[in-house]
């Protein structure tokens, strides 16, 4: 379970960043996330929807302890992300569209590496690795170096790395971006499996069809503000436009009419 309370994150801009942003930026600070609160329950897919630059990745990075909140708090399975970072990470899996693998290591070595870093004992690690390799069909290329793998093969290894320590909370940050249809389908299936396994799943995306397929709970984040937070079924029932895309644009326009 993830509980986020009054979470904010601001970044100080360097002179170079200010220059790059031109007139779009006033002042020295960017407020990436503004005072948001939400709860993600186990056995449900919590979907964070928003355009690029809305603050989705910043929020997920704070959940994963990569970034520290400017204010507010995040509690993951009873552990505060600032005070108990290690415990949070032990309970957490993090998957992005970029596979982020080591080209000169084999899948076997990669999974051993992350399993050991996550504090797994050798017996559990080898058993869990075998289960995942069976499930994902990694055995046939388990001892070849990752460098020359196809995107699909890399994504399988990336999934195994995320799930090796059997995390109770799984964070997906735009996990299908840049993937082909087959690789993307394996991610969708993984998210469904996590839900069946009663894990807490938080999925960040800007792809409406994924929201439609997977979401139990929905939060829409726009320019750092949470403009919707509730059940996805309620959201659909309350839609004033015919499609999700149109409804999303309408809400964003309502929130900041001058920009859309």
């Amino acid at each position: 379970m993830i509980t986020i309370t009054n979470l904010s994150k601001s970044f100080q801009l360097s002179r170079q960043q200010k220059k790059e942003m031109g007139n779009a930026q006033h002042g020295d600070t960017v407020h990436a996330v503004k005072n948001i609160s939400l709860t993600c329950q186990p056995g449900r897919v919590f979907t964070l929807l928003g355009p690029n630059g809305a603050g989705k990745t910043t929020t997920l990075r704070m959940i994963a302890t990569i970034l520290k909140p400017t204010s507010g708090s995040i509690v993951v399975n009873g552990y505060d992300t600032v005070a108990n970072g290690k415990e949070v990470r032990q309970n957490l899996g993090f998957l992005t569209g970029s596979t982020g693998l080591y080209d000169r290591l084999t899948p076997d070595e990669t999974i051993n590496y992350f399993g050991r870093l996550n504090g797994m004992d050798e017996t559990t690690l080898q058993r869990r690795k075998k289960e995942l390799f069976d499930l994902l069909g990694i055995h046939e290329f388990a001892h070849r170096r990752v460098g020359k793998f196809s995107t699909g093969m890399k994504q399988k290894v990336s999934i195994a790395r995320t799930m090796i320590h059997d995390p109770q909370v799984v964070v997906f940050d735009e996990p299908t971006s840049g993937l082909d249809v087959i690789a993307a389908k394996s991610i969708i299936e993984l998210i469904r499996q996590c839900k069946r396994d009663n894990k807490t799943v938080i999925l960040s995306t800007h792809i409406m069809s994924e929201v439609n397929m997977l979401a139990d709970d929905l939060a829409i984040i726009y320019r750092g503000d949470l403009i919707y937070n509730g059940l996805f079924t309620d959201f659909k029932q309350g839609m004033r436009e015919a499609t999700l895309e149109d409804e999303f644009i309408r809400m964003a326009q309502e929130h900041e009419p001058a920009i859309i």
Partner: protein
Amino acid sequence: MKNIFTIFSKEIKDILRDKRTLTVMLLIPLVVYPAIFIGITKYMTAQNEKAVAETLRIGIISNGNQSDFETFVSTMPNTKISAISDTTAAKEAILSDSIDVAYFFPEGFDSAVAKLQGTGFQYFYTSTNNEFEVAIVENINTVYKQALVKKKLAQIEVSETVLEPAKSISRNLASAREQLGSVIGGILPYFFIIFCMIGCMYPAIDLAAGEKERGSLETLLVSSASRIEIYTGKLMTVALSGFLSAMASIVGLIISGQIIGSDTASGDEMGQIAKVLADILEPGSIIMMLVILLPLNIFFAAITLMLSIYARTFKEAQSMITPLMILIVFPTIIGMLPGVTLDYTTALIPILNVSLGAKEIISGTIETGPLLLTYAALFVYAAIALIISVRFFNNEKNILRG
């Protein structure tokens, strides 16, 4: 601690599989540089031998003088004498490479010498002649003039000692190690400082900026390993790589020194230098140098890792770290200059203190005070670099800059 070891082992495995890093870290200092060193020495030796065996072709314009110059030159080995009619013919012969040098004796040269009237002869050559020919010609001139003086003194029955009533005899108390060590001792630190830096450079770029660019750093940060464990594992890898590279450069130099030294044909200056280089590296000196190398190694590892963490991409890290080489080469070269010694001031200047310290360790002239100050300064600089580097790694702005 377990996580540090896990990260360290993985990073070592990773860099050992990277051909580019391996080439720069081990192959170049261990094989390429010694091969170049041996090649140059062999080439110089061969050129020397060739020059010594070559015949010096001398043309003489005697102008009717019966001087004993011709007799004198004919006693010298590898000389061939020919008569030339005038200076125009002499110049043509030199420019067309028919002769190497032409001597012109003016009319009345013999009688002027006999009467001590003061006269002279000219010799023509081109400055593009090789240095061995020039040296032989200058030697002929000196010895010939000395022979004229001796002959005249004998005629007037005056002892040769009139020319040098008192001789000055120098007795150099410096040992062979001190004399040669002060000259060639600068070469060794130059090699190990440069290779220590190069050895740190590539793994540092790959392990921080490279990981950031590939997206693997983010996944590593989400593992249970703490940030300081990740940093330490990476720093240890970078430092070990720099250390191995520096050691490889020392081993490479020793091996090439032994190869050249064992070659009987290399009795020349280069061969002797190489032989001494191999001889003076006894275990005590090596241990003292390793103690200097260790903090320097950490200093380099911390700085390269810090810049690499800050860089957005592999390329940006390369362009940030490469100019550092100039900052390192400069004090290293200063340390090679004669007259620059390790004292309480130079011991505080990073890199220069290593260069000078190693030079004096090799030549055996190191003093305890400046050496201890060098160690202390290096450990302090390494600690400062480490603290700044850790802070860089812990700063989320740097780690996610991209």
